[in-house]
């Protein structure tokens, strides 16, 4: 990526200038994303989910009963929440990961190019001598940054609520072994990272969809629609042959970090699958965006 590009000009100075432009482009993209009211509203709703779950569990178990009648129904890990507030983080991530988190990502990613095109600001962005590839990279990185922030918001909110309402302490992993709270916290951080990375596939997909249209709302709707379709396809046992290649298939594998020893098979498969989606749809977005006529 650092190859000099003598486009009319030559020498190292323009290349350095471009890199600088790329960096400031990324900075400005991130600020644009996080200054939008809709981004803040999305983050606010995401932060509210653990609060709701925590309060609901607290009320249900207020009389000493167990969660969900103790039969293992409901979202993953919910039966352990009362004993250890840390599990609220896992429950919240497990319940927001299937739809809520990716929907938020779909909104941001779908809007990134098409929204600018729809508002007529894309051509001004392209005036900056950074090039389309860099602009696309900046958009991608800014959306990935949103992935991380969104995941961290859910995790942090859940941790705060969990610490307030429930006891914290040594963590019993799902394999039955007990680890210290610090180890548990470390695993929580790792899990948040894995969840954020799990969403990179849909970032690339959303970005590609976003380069196809000039309507921001169409791109968002398509991305979220694709997500829901794929989630439904992932439910049918008849389609088990293709399911390992659907991007949400291994999303819940983050729970494997709570096994002892950690069960890496599905985790690695998940990360590999996300990398594949990023490579395929990222390059498709690049092919489309760099050859597209920008008229608006």
């Amino acid at each position, binding site marked *: 990526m650092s*190859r000099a590009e003598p486009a009319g000009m030559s020498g190292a100075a323009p290349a350095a200038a471009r890199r600088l432009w790329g960096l400031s482009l990324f900075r400005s993209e991130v600020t644009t994303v996080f200054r939008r009211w809709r981004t803040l509203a999305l983050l606010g709703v995401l932060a509210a989910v653990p609060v709701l779950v925590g309060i609901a569990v607290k009320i249900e178990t207020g009389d000493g009963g167990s969660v969900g009648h103790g039969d*293992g129904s409901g979202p993953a890990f919910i039966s*352990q929440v009362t*004993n250890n507030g840390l599990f609220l983080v896992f429950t919240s991530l497990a319940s927001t990961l299937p739809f809520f988190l990716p929907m938020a990502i779909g909104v941001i990613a779908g809007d990134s190019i098409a929204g600018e095109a729809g508002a007529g600001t894309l051509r001004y962005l392209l005036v900056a001598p950074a090039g389309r590839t860099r602009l696309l990279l900046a958009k991608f990185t800014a959306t990935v940054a949103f992935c991380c922030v969104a995941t961290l918001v859910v995790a942090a909110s859940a941790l705060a609520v969990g610490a307030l309402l429930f006891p914290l302490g040594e963590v019993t992993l799902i394999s039955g072994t007990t680890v210290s709270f610090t180890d548990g916290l470390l695993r929580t951080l790792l899990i948040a990272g894995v969840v954020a990375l799990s969403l990179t596939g849909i970032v690339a997909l959303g970005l590609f969809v976003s380069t196809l249209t000039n309507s921001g709302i169409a791109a968002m709707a398509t991305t979220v629609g694709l997500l829901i379709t794929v989630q439904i396809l992932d439910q049918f046992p008849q389609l088990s042959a293709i399911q390992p290649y659907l991007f949400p298939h291994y999303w819940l594998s983050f*729970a494997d970090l709570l*096994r*002892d020893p950690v069960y890496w098979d599905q985790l690695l498969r998940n990360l590999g699958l996300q990398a594949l989606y990023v490579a395929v749809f990222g390059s498709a977005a690049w092919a489309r965006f760099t050859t597209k*006529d920008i008229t608006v």
Partner: protein
Amino acid sequence: MARIQPTPGTDAADGRGAAKGRRKAVRYAVPVAVAGVAAATIGIGSALASTGDPDLPKISAQDLIAKMAASDTQQMSGSVKITTDLGLPSLPSGLGLESGGGHGGKKGGTAASPESKLTELASGTHTLRVAVDGPDKQRVSLVERAAEYSVIRNGDDVWAYDSAGNTALHSKAPQRGPDGKREAAGTPKDLRGASPQELAKKVVEAAGGTTTLTVDGTAKVAGRDAYQLVLTPKQGESTVGAVRIAVDAKNGVPLKFTLAPKSGGKAVVDAAFTKVDFGKPGADTFSFTPPKGAKVTEGGDKDGKAGKDGKHAGRGDQQSGLTGALGLPGAGGDGAAKVTGEGWASIAQFTAGKEAGGIVSGKDRSALKDAGKNGDAAGKLLDGLGSKVSGDFGSGRVFSTRVINALMTDDGKVFVGAVSKDALVKAANAAK
């Protein structure tokens, strides 16, 4: 990286449409190429996995069985993938094997009982993680989606922990023999204590009448070289096509067990290590303290089974290998059951009572009236499942799966075996 980025306004108007089209095609080829390379890698990967049988010195079936018996591997850990396809009809929810449980047999908040988990293994693909350190420390975990079910034995304590419901079951391990040696589940009493070579000889003898034992090449299982021992039933009425056991060439531990039906198609049971390590598992693998707030049930003597079941599941591949080799007829043999036939063609016979027979035949549907709607639905379901047969014994219904067939006569006798329907009818006629 492109040399020139298209600039709005100029690019479309510069008249070099052909060049632009070519560049577009080249760029779109990138994602296609990436997807193609990924697909090819996946394809080659699975093709490579199935080839490359290792070159091993030839060995006779008897020597291989001696090797299995002599195996003194005490420490191991690994992952086992079990795929079962018994050909059981998929029942509508609510009428499943654990009716009322709804999901996974977790009935109304009862403790993590191993029995219900074992029935879960009877269909589909599951991953088990196994760790063994000598006769006193074993651990088996059933890896589920965002949950895990573990049976842990550490000395005299046996714990079963279900993370989904946060429930635990505690019981004492069954007493071991005075010599401190673990009883190998599935090893017949008269063979216990025999020397490995003797044991192998006896296995071959026991199998001799009913089974053809051959060594069929080699295979790689979980990255280890293995011999393939094939057991083929001699009796024509058996529904079992062949049992293949892959035995580690170095230490004689069975690594893979496959049971193929005579009717062909997918294996009925396919259990294989996907990862195996013969090092000593960490000591904390076997320590378990029930988490705060977990519902703990103390198991009595009756529940002492838990440990045995867990152990059995853990050593499943190894033990079922031996059990299979012996063609043990006593699998379903409770006190009340009578076993006829021998080896693979054994048929268990027991009495289910007249009413049950009536329900099955549909003659006595009124018996179900009390049970209400559910019973009626169950009766209809049975109608759909069984096919009617008749013979000298009268008439009845045959329920078949891919390997096990069962005949239930109208007067309430049940004949079960891994044999063809005709053999069941013959047995019923003979019992008349």
